[in-house]
């Protein structure tokens, strides 16, 4: 004989205050848990989406961020002449030598300085990075001090809105356009003509070269040849992996912190659930005795009580995920430890995060409810009726 599920439902409903408090605790834990996962997910999506599988990036060996890397024009020309690089319809080689510099700009509102990456790009850069699209204004005109700004920083920093001017490298640059890049890291950058940037900063060097591979299999041969060339000290990486690596440290930090907080919270929530379940067992001693007298086996009672605590956890988990899903409307920005530059990313929810969070809440319910349920199923019928 199985006790109807309705019994568990009605018990939770009868003690509404306690149910609410316990489920609230579990909801808080799940909210934090899924928020952390969403954050790490969003960060990875932003940086992984920055690269493309078809491209390879060449930087100076040992430079883990582009602004530390330096390649002189001789090296640039050697790299550009490699046979693995694809050509476009007009026979132009798809290789873009870019300059990346960090500048200090003040945030709007708080007036606090933060670092932003400025990318001086070649004409080929735009055709190779297909995700970058101009959404407002126009591109810079050659020979003029004009820039286009990524959507993520346009509103956040002083002087970066359309039509405003921003000063760096002893010049005033006019913002003539805003671009988007499908949420990739480029959206946190300022773009302009590479030659203009080299002149402004008087740096006779480029930072990186991005090349389109004729076929994906060419990567290894290109890497082997360039890295063993005695004239160069470069590292060749797949573009996607290069940018993904820049998120490692941040993602690890978010995960460690999140895990630590989640573990502590879940202990608290489990204790809450345990207290609730023990109390409801103690309060229902007579009920349990009655059910046993009616012939329900111990196992059914165990199941009924366990189900009650799982239900409690499930409700809490659901509420927590709902709360966390609201976070998708927010984006946050922070300094990336790996590049020292400001990066904006969003909380991104995925089906796997929902499943993981719900499973986690059920595990909490199981741990919180197991001991009390065992205690309930072990009550002797005689003792149960002896309670006044």
């Amino acid at each position, binding site marked *: 004989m199985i006790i109807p599920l309705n019994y568990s439902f009605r018990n939770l409903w009868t003690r509404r205050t306690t149910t609410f408090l316990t489920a*609230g605790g579990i909801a808080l834990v799940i909210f934090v848990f899924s928020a952390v996962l969403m954050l790490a997910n969003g960060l990875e999506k932003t940086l992984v989406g920055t690269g493309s599988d078809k491209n390879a990036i060449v930087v100076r060996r*040992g430079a883990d961020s582009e602004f530390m890397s330096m390649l002189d024009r001789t090296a640039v020309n050697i790299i550009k002449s490699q046979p693995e690089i694809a050509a476009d319809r007009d026979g132009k080689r798809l290789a873009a030598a870019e300059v990346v*510099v960090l500048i200090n700009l003040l945030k709007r509102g708080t007036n606090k300085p933060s670092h932003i990456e400025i990318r001086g790009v070649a004409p080929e850069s735009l055709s190779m990075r297909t995700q970058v699209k101009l959404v407002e204004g126009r591109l810079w005109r050659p020979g003029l001090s004009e820039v286009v700004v990524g959507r993520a920083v346009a509103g956040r920093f002083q002087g970066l809105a359309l039509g405003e001017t921003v000063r760096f490298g002893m010049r005033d640059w006019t913002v003539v356009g805003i671009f988007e890049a499908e949420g990739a890291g480029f959206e946190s950058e300022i773009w302009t003509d590479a030659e203009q940037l080299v002149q402004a900063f008087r740096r006779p060097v480029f930072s990186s070269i991005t090349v389109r591979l004729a076929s994906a299999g060419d990567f290894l041969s290109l890497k082997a040849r360039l890295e063993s060339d005695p004239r160069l000290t470069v590292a060749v990486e797949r573009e996607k992996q290069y940018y993904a690596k820049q998120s490692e440290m941040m993602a690890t930090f978010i995960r460690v912190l999140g895990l630590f907080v989640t573990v502590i919270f879940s202990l608290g929530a489990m204790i*809450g659930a345990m207290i609730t379940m023990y109390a409801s067992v103690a309060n229902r001693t007579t009920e349990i005795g009655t059910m046993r007298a009616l012939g329900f086996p111990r196992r059914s009672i165990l199941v009924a009580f366990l189900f009650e605590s799982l239900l409690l956890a499930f409700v809490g988990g659901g509420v927590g995920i709902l709360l966390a899903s609201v976070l998708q409307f927010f984006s946050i920005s922070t300094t990336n430890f790996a590049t020292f530059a400001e990066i904006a990313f969003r909380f991104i929810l995925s089906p796997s995060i929902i499943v993981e969070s719900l499973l986690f809440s059920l595990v909490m319910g199981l741990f919180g409810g197991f001991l009390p349920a065992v205690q309930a199923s072990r009550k002797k019928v005689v003792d149960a009726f002896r309670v006044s």
Partner: protein
Amino acid sequence: MELFRLILKNTMRHPLRSILTVFGIAIAISAFGLIRTVIGAWYSGVEASAPNRLITRNAVSLGFSLPVAYREAIRGIPGVVDVTYAHWFGGIYIDEKHSQFPQFAVDTTNFSEMYPEFKLPPEQKAVFKQQRNAAVVGRKLAERFNWKVGDVIQMRGMIFPGDWEFTIRGIYTGAQKSTDETQFIFHYQYLDEKLKQTEPWRAGNVGWYVVKVKDPRQAAEVAEAIDLRFKNSLAETLTETERAFVLGFISMSETILVALRIISLVIIGVILLVLSNTMAMTARERLSEYAVLKTLGFGARHLVFLIVGESLLIAATGGLVGILITYPAAKGFERAMGDAMGAIFPAFDVATTTQILCALMAVAVGLAASAFPTWRAVQVRIVDGLRRVG
């Protein structure tokens, strides 16, 4: 004081429930303490900064350097006592995981005069000044890698390519608790000479200048004078007090700090939920008892005392246990983060203010959690209380 005995007896009526609640509160309180400690560690560099030191760096960003020739120009500005410079090295020792400690090339002629809080034995200082590839390391760093004076260290340059070899000629200790003991310091000349051979266009530059002012109250004026001196030059400067410079670095990771603060607030919420739950149950079970007490002539005052007392007893016990386990937790956290985050947390200690805050929180939660049950106990009519079956 019969009431005190009653409180104790009441608390121990459900020993398991009380113990679980205490345990839950203890964990949450120690988590709160740990997060406060992390936030404090983040700001430890601010405490270590001296009021009479200014930092002059390139106005564009930290990625840009300044000509070494600026030194004498800065020295000539009124109010400046002494100037030294440093350059960020950023090399790789063994692998990236082990390299998260600050490495600077410094001007050894007056570095130790500018930074008196770095205590170095005189004989080590003398050798360090003479030997070109000598390096001085902090006590914590030396302990971490088990370095001894005389050890030869190999590093791979990231910003300055090539293989670099250093000999450790000194181990410094901090004069204050907040002094960073994780730094690796070596000769600027050693770096510059190598650069002249490999990348001559980058030689003769330094990362930033450290300027000592005669009077800390004039810091702002001196800073302005320095920046004005290099206005409209190829390398414009940005000068601020050491404190502001460190704060600027911290504000970069502001988002993370805000998140930590929010989390520590949510933790308070969790404790409140756990304790409120316990207290609500307790009150519900004992409504008929409260009615009996009222019948015997006990007033609302006594009931408040009973319920709030029990709540406070549980919360205080939890808080005490929590504060006690914060210490091993902080040690464990430091070890877990040690390799990855050594650079961010030069000092990591549980502050007295943190403990006081934890204790205050426990008391506040104890009071808040008992509010609703107390109200119900005071409100309940004797007849209803006696009629009720708990």
